[in-house]
């Protein structure tokens, strides 16, 4: 019986989900799967009861892999009636390095000639909603941001590198739509992040409206 394929961890903000594809050539057959995981440097494979003989092709191992300084392996096998496949195993998974840092929360407030930007780092995955919130900033203390600003009227774009959470863009054109793209990154880590984009319009120039009256 062939093994499941493409077994990998999909990880964002430390939510670590193991996913795989069904074995090739067995479409339409009612398969179940069993998952185990291994903490690198420890002694044996461990089971997760919620992922024993399941129909779906994913298993949330966030709780089991929550110590992000550890490294992990996981494996899955397919079962059909009395038959079961060999185990299909992941590469060594390192959450601290491989989790994707989600897009930051971006709050924009515009006046006539300026836009103030307030950034909030995404939250780390948590087991229960009532658990205390941990920011990804607490895990990656040097989390920085690259802010790109696009003037939709002049089609001009410029970027700025920010280490803290607020930035005020000044000397802007009134009554103009600006789009702000924010990408977080950690200097010295090859991580991948997801950018976030928002647009806001500066207010009309009040002085010119007064003259018209």
């Amino acid at each position: 019986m062939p093994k499941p394929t493409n077994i990998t961890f999909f990880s964002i903000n430390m939510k670590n989900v193991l996913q795989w594809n069904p074995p090739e050539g067995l479409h339409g057959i009612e398969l179940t799967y069993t998952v185990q995981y291994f903490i690198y440097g420890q002694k044996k494979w461990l089971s997760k009861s919620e992922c024993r003989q399941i129909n779906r092709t994913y298993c949330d191992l966030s709780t089991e892999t929550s110590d992000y300084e550890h490294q992990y392996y996981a494996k899955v096998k397919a079962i059909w009636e009395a038959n079961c496949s060999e185990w299909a195993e992941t590469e060594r998974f390192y959450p601290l390095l491989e989790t994707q840092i989600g897009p930051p929360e971006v709050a924009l407030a515009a006046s006539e000639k300026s836009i103030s930007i307030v950034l909030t780092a995404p939250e780390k995955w948590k087991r229960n909603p009532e658990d205390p919130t941990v920011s990804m900033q607490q895990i990656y203390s040097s989390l920085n941001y690259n802010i790109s600003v696009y003037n939709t009227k002049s089609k001009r774009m410029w970027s700025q590198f920010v280490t803290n959470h607020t930035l005020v863009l000044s000397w802007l054109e009134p009554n103009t739509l600006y789009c702000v793209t924010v990408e977080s990154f950690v200097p010295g880590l090859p991580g991948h992040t997801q950018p976030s984009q928002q647009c806001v319009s500066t207010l009309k120039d009040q002085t010119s409206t007064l003259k018209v009256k």
Partner: protein
Amino acid sequence: EFHFGPCHVEGVALLELWKAFGAMKDIVVTQDKIMSVRLLKQEVFQNVSDAESCYLAHELLKFYLHTVFKDYYHKVVEFKIMKSFSTLANNLFVIMSKLQPRQENETVSIRESAHRRFLLFWSAFKQLNTEAALTKAFGEVDILLTWMGKFYRH
């Protein structure tokens, strides 16, 4: 640049080291069949003080360059990863040579503390046969770079 406590190292882009290791990681780590042993355990790096970090970084890098990289080179040729390997090795050599840990008397206790951490790694390395130990140590460069990254300033 790196700030290992009092030791500052400029002119090395950590991202280049990551790219070099990333290009080799899959080939190298899959060679490591001993999942139940981790050489760079968490205890090696737990609560390393800034003052200790220079000594520990220097000792680890010296071992990696003079032992792991030197004796693993035949595998590097076999796997045809010489370019990435030399980028990684040369950059680590630059860091090591710029680290000048002070040797005065008042640093004895800090040096000894850093050396005890190194011995945790080294004793685990010695318990494996040479080939397996070299493969495992090389595969754990991501753990080493992750720790070094904590002392990296953009």
